[in-house]
C-alpha cells in the first residue's frame, strides 16, 4: 500500500526529475531517426513495454503475430503523436523523457528493470499506479497512453475481425 505521502514525494521528485531530464537531454537532442512519426528509442522502449499490457486480451495469441501487432501499434502511436499540436507533442516528449530516466523509472513507475527488460507484472503495477494516482500529471499520463494505444490498435483493420466490426461499406453506384 502506498501512502498519500509517498505519492506527494513522488510528485515532488517527478517535478525535479522533469527539470533534470530536460537538462540532461537538452532541448534538441537529435532523435535516432528524423522521419516524421518516428519515436525516439526511449519512447519506443517504454511503449513496447506498455502496449502489450494495455492490449492484453486484444492482441493475437501467436508470438510472431503478437509481436507484429505491437510493432504496428507503436508505429501507429508515433504517427498519431506527430499529428498532434506542438504543445501536446512537447508534453508527451517530456513524459517519455522523464520515464526513461532510471531514477524516475524506479521511483515513479516502480519499474526495476530497464524498460526493454520490464516484466508485464511490473508494467501492470505501474499503469495501475498512474491511473489511481492523486497526481493529475500521472493520471493524465495514463489517459494519454490509454487514448494513444487504443486509437492506434483499433484504427488498424487488423484489429477488426476479433471485435466483429466488418469495416466501412463499399461505395458503389
Amino acid at each position, binding site marked *: 500500500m502506498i501512502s498519500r505521502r509517498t505519492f506527494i514525494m513522488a510528485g515532488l521528485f517527478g517535478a525535479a526529475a522533469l527539470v533534470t531530464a530536460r537538462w540532461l537531454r537538452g532541448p534538441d537532442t537529435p532523435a535516432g531517426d528524423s522521419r516524421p512519426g518516428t519515436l525516439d528509442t526511449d519512447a519506443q522502449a517504454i511503449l513496447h513495454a506498455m502496449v502489450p499490457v494495455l492490449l492484453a486480451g486484444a492482441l493475437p495469441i501467436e508470438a510472431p503475430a503478437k509481436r507484429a501487432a505491437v510493432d504496428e501499434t507503436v508505429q*501507429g502511436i508515433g504517427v498519431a503523436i506527430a499529428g498532434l499540436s506542438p504543445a501536446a507533442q512537447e508534453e508527451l516528449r517530456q513524459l517519455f523523457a522523464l520515464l526513461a530516466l532510471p531514477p524516475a523509472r524506479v521511483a515513479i513507475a516502480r519499474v526495476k528493470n530497464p524498460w526493454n527488460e520490464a516484466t508485464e507484472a511490473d508494467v501492470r503495477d505501474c499503469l495501475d499506479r498512474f491511473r489511481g494516482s492523486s497526481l493529475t500529471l500521472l493520471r493524465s499520463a495514463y489517459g494519454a497512453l490509454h487514448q494513444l494505444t487504443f486509437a492506434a490498435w483499433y484504427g488498424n483493420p487488423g484489429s477488426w475481425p476479433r471485435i466483429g466490426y466488418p469495416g466501412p461499406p463499399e461505395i458503389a453506384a
Partner: protein
Amino acid sequence: MTPAHNSPIPDPFEAGLASGWKVIDASLLAKDLTLDADVAIAGSGAGGGTAAEILANAGLSVVVLEEGPLRTSNDFRMRESEAYPELYQESAARKTRDKAINILQGRCVGGGTTVNWTSSFRTPPATLAFWQREFGLAGYSVDELAPWFAQMEARLSIAPWDVAPNANNEALARGARMIGISSAAIRRNVTGCWNIGYCGLGCPTNAKQSMLVTTIPGALAKGATLVTRVRVQRLVLEKDRVALLEGDAMDAAGVAPTTRKVRVRARAYIAAGGAIGTPALLLRSGAPDPHGILGKRTFLHPTVVSAALMPDRVDAFAGAPQTIYSDHFLDTQPIDGPMGYKLEAPPLHPVLTATTLPDDGDAHAQWMAAFPRMQVLIALMRDGFNPESQGGTVRLRDDGTPLLDYPLLPLFWDAARRAMRTMAQIQFAAGAQTVMPVHARGAAFTSFAGARAAIDAFVLEPGVTPVVSAHVMGGAPLGPNPKRAVVTSTGRHHQVENLYVFDGSLFPTSIGANPQLSIYGIVARLATGLAQSLAPRG
C-alpha cells in the same frame, strides 16, 4: 482533394475547380500571399460558410480562410485513422486544461459541419427566452428568428428523417417509452442519404448538406476565394478599426506554421473560428476587452456516457448516427436550476469506442469483443444557465494556441450522476443485459437496482469519469450591454467597428441542443444585415 478516381459519386469540387474556382492551399505557397476583399472571413464552418455565401450573393468580394485542409468526397474513406488527424482539431484529441474533457471539433473546409452527425434543432424557445430575460437580447424571439431558420432549413435540406432509426437509436426510443418519458425524432440536413452511418468521418456520398457541399461551393461560384491551411494569427488594429488580417501558412500536415504569411486587407473582418478559435484570435490581436469578458463563459455541453450490451446485434456503426433524442430532463425542470440534460445516442466506430471505454487489458478487450452488441447513450449537460455554471475560459499558451480551462463543478457532477442513473434505467428497460456507466475502471451491472446503488456511491471526479464534448459555444457573446457582451446584437464588436463575430461564440449560454442550426439561422440574419450595410460600391 485528391484527383478523380473511379468513385461513382461526383465530387462537387472537382467540377468547380475545373471551372475556375479560386482555391489556394497555403501549405504550397512559394512566397507570401496578399489579398484584397470586401470581407475576410476567418473560418469555413457553420458560421463562416453561411456568411460567405450570403455576402458573395450580395455581390461582395469574399476571402474565406481555413486552418484545415480541403478534403472532399473523393477523400472520405470512412476510416477513423485518416479522418481524425485530417478533419479534426488536434486529431480529435483536443483537451481542456486539466485534460478532463475531450473535445471533438472539426478543422477542415466546412469545419464541424463536415464531420458532425447531422442533428438539426432550432434554438430551443426556453434558451431564447432566457437570453432575452437575463441578457436583454431583443430581436431574438422564436418568431423573429423563425424566417432565418426556415431560410437555412431550405438551403440545407433540413427535414424530418422518415427512415426507421438504427437499433442504437431505437433502443433510446424504446427505453424512454418503457420508463414513461418522451422522445422524438431528430431532423437531419441530408438529401439522398444512403443511411450508411459515417457522417462523423466525412460524408462519402455528399448527402450531408454541410458547408463543404452547399454554401462554400455557392460562395466560390460567385467568385469568392478560399485559402486553406492558413491559421489566422492576428487582426492588426488601428484605433478602433481592423486594418489587416495576418495568417501563418501551415505545413502540409497542418501541425506547425511555415514561414509563409497570408495577409488580407478588407473592409470588414469576420471571426468564425468557433468558440475556442474566435476568442483566441481576438486575444492574440489585443482586441479591446474593457470588461474582461472575452473568452469567458465558454460552454461545451459536457457529456457523460453509458454503455450497454444488448442480447442481439445493435451494429451502432451502421445507419444514420443520431435520429432519436429525449429532452425530458431539459423540459421538466427550471432552466436555471440543477443542470438538465439532453439524451442522445452516438455512432460507434472502433477508435471512438475503444478510447472512450474505461480500463484496459482483458476487461477492455472483453467489452470490445462485444462491439456489435454495444448500445450507447450520451447525456449532454445544458451549461451556462444556473448562476454557478460559468463554463470555461479560453486562454493562450506561450505559442499563442488556445487552451480552454473548464472546471467541472459539483453542479455538473450532480447532473452527471442523475444522467448516469437515467441512462442505465433506459438501457435496462430497453432490454440491456449489462450496463456500464462510463466511469473509473468501468464497473458493469446486470440490473438497474444494482447500477443505481453503485452510481449513487460513485466518486465522480475529473480524470476519473471520462467527459466528452462535441459542441463549443460562447466566449464572445452578443448582446446590447458591453459589460456582458463582446459584440452587439448585430454581431459587430462593441469596440471595433469593422470586426464581426459570426459563429457559436456568439451564444450567451449553451444552446441546450446540437448547435449547428442555431449558428446557421443566427448567422444568416447577421450576415444579411452586414451585406446590407456593405452594399456593393458602384
